[in-house]
């Protein structure tokens, strides 16, 4: 996975991958920031229901939020396992992240189907449009993370994830934590403050 940047001297002493990825995350902040703003701008604009307070289920989403938060803890422990060269630990915690990520996606799938059942769709009103596009894009990010971490899990199982490759797990971790933090913002602004 190395590119020219890793191969030579760097000015900051940090691997280019890390700087590049942080820059990309800055870009993603603006992306989600704009999507969240869209939701906030249109919060009270829908001309017909269902309205947020009628369908949003705070207790249920609290559980899925907790699941996603715990996955970040598992991610930290997975990186620790890889860095220490403890393959069992690394595999166990990577698997945990993947499973927790999938559970979160399961909750989201249930939520989406339930909402559609209640009559809330992308076409129905502005709440539906902005809610589905925002949480949908977040869900896509979680899915990408799940695929990424599954790949790392398989690599680890094949013994191809030695401590020298910890950077690739760290970067995946950066991504995963970012997606997690975005969810905290979404949960707070969309679910808790209605």
């Amino acid at each position, binding site marked *: *996975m*190395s*590119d*020219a*940047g890793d*191969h*030579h*001297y*760097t*000015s*900051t002493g*940090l691997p*280019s991958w890390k*700087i*590049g990825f942080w*820059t*990309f995350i*800055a*870009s*993603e902040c*603006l*992306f989600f920031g*704009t*999507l969240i703003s*869209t939701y906030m*701008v*249109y919060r009270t*604009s*829908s*001309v017909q229901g269902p309205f947020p307070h009628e369908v949003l289920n705070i207790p249920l989403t609290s559980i899925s939020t907790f699941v996603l938060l715990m996955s970040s803890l598992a991610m930290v422990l997975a990186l620790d396992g890889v860095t220490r060269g403890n393959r069992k630990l690394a595999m166990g915690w990577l698997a945990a992240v993947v499973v927790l990520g999938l559970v979160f996606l399961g909750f989201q799938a249930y939520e989406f189907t339930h909402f559609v059942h209640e009559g809330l769709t*992308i*076409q129905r*009103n*502005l709440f*539906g*449009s*902005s809610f589905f*596009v925002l949480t949908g*894009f977040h869900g896509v990010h979680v899915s990408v993370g799940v*695929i990424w971490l599954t*790949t790392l899990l398989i690599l680890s199982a094949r013994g191809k994830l030695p401590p020298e490759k910890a950077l690739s797990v760290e970067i995946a971790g950066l991504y995963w934590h970012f997606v997690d933090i975005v969810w905290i913002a979404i949960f707070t602004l969309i679910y808790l403050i209605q």
Partner: protein
Amino acid sequence: MSVATPAPHPTGVWSWITTVDHKRIGIMYFVTSIFFLFVGGLEALIIRAQLWKPEQALISAETYSQLFTMHGTTMVFMVVMPMAVAFFNYIVPLQIGARDVAFPRLNALSYWLYLLGSLYMNVSWLWGMAPNAGWTGYANLTSTQFSPGQNVNFWVIGLSILGISSILGGVNFITTIVNLRAPGMKLMHMPLFTWMTLVTSFILVTAMPVIAVALVLLAFDRFFAATFFVPTAGGDPVFWQHLFWIFGHPEVYVLILPSFGVISDVIPAFSRKPLFGYPVVVYAGVLIGFIGWGVWSHHMFASGLGPIADSFFLASTMIIAIPTGVKIFNWLATMWGGSLRLTTAMLFAVGMIAVFTVGGLSGIMHASAPVDLQQHDTYFVVAHLHYVIVGGAMMGLFSGFYYWFPKVTGRMADEGLGKIHFWLAMIGFNLTFFPMHMSGMYGMPRRTWTYAAALNVDIYNQLSTVGGVIFGVSALVWVWVMLKGVRSGAPASPNPWEAPTLEWSIPSPPAHYNCPALPRVRHRDPLWREEDRAAIEAVTLSVPEVEPEMPNSSFWPIVVAAGTSATWMLVMTGRWWAPLIGLAFTAFGVFAWAFEDPFRKKS
């Protein structure tokens, strides 16, 4: 001291398709942007022909709408931006003493996305369905109700692909400049062009996601019947304007800052004087990058945001003129008392200062909300924006072209022809756009396919059309300069202009690995300090016994670019599962990319 001869490098079409060399990618960006310059230029000339006489019907109103939409979109996203990126690519690694950019394959991906997105949007011409809602794509003109055809779809999808390309490019150049500077080179040692590339990249990385979201919302409205910009469902068309201009105004600085960077390097080189007030020019550029985020609503004075919003954006817009003015004075002070050499590059740099100042001044005029209400949607604004983008951005890029031509090709451009190009461009440009101030003042509306004879603006339009033809001819002369220079220009030495910055310490053209070993930089203008120059050239002009290891060429960037573009294009089918095919293709490319070792030895 022996001058290194560049090592042989594979040639042939395949080697260009799979290249990850920043210099080749730079050349591809440049050539592609010139192609689209002629496409956009042709569109402009057809517009000018239609406006030759009042109440003329050379082309239909619908065709006219498509022409001005595509002219604007092409010139901004397919010409000025990528041409600047061509210079970023070729010049920045050389200026900081790097072997390549931080992510060479990502760089290739950016280029292929640019090419595919641009071609895709232009393919719409074949069906006569080119985008027709203006380059700003204002809601709800773009709704399925008012634009039922495929036209706007081409725009949404093409622009999305171009946006991805820009974000990835921004990430790459920030990382390159932050992390791959030669040992000893501090940020405040960097040439101004590298500095402005850094600022521009930050703007790209942060502004592009905003337009990306706007385009996503519009795409959902159009393809999946969402209601983001549908007023009857509570959607707010003005919200589109906000999103577009929150991106759009920083974008203006994406267009102009590279040009500021170019001439901040060119003027000292041809004045034989270090840049006057280097730190101030740097800070002014950074400040422009920041304040550029706080002025967007001056594009919306006519939208009725109210006096408080208008006053705020009026003030911030006037404030941003200050750092820009500071730069102009720094350039003038650099020339003051210098021993000037009026080469073509220098002429374009000086010309840029002159015409850009005109555009800046008219900009301050409509920074004032009441004045702007008079000028809004008239040719006065068209005059202003062309003075800024053509006079400011393009003239600076022309200057950069003549400055760096010997470095890239190893040959000198014909200075005589270059000066003909300069004068034709200057005369043509001013003749085209200056009269538009007048026609605008007399009330001629922009984006309207013809005008009433009673307006009495025929003469200004005819001057503009004649000027447009002269400007077009100057572009042909430019191409002639390129072809002649490449084929039969006099061989160029490593530093034909006796310029001070690092890119002039290596052979012209550079070897594919740029420098045999990394030079040590201790000063802002290293080649103008004798002991520094000797130490650096001892490294950069030597012939290495073992060539530095460079990344292999790769097929995967073009695969991923094709997959990403296909994903977006298949959205147009309106079937939710269709993009998944493109997505699968992209995923395949991404995995192959991730598991490819760029430094694997070829057996």
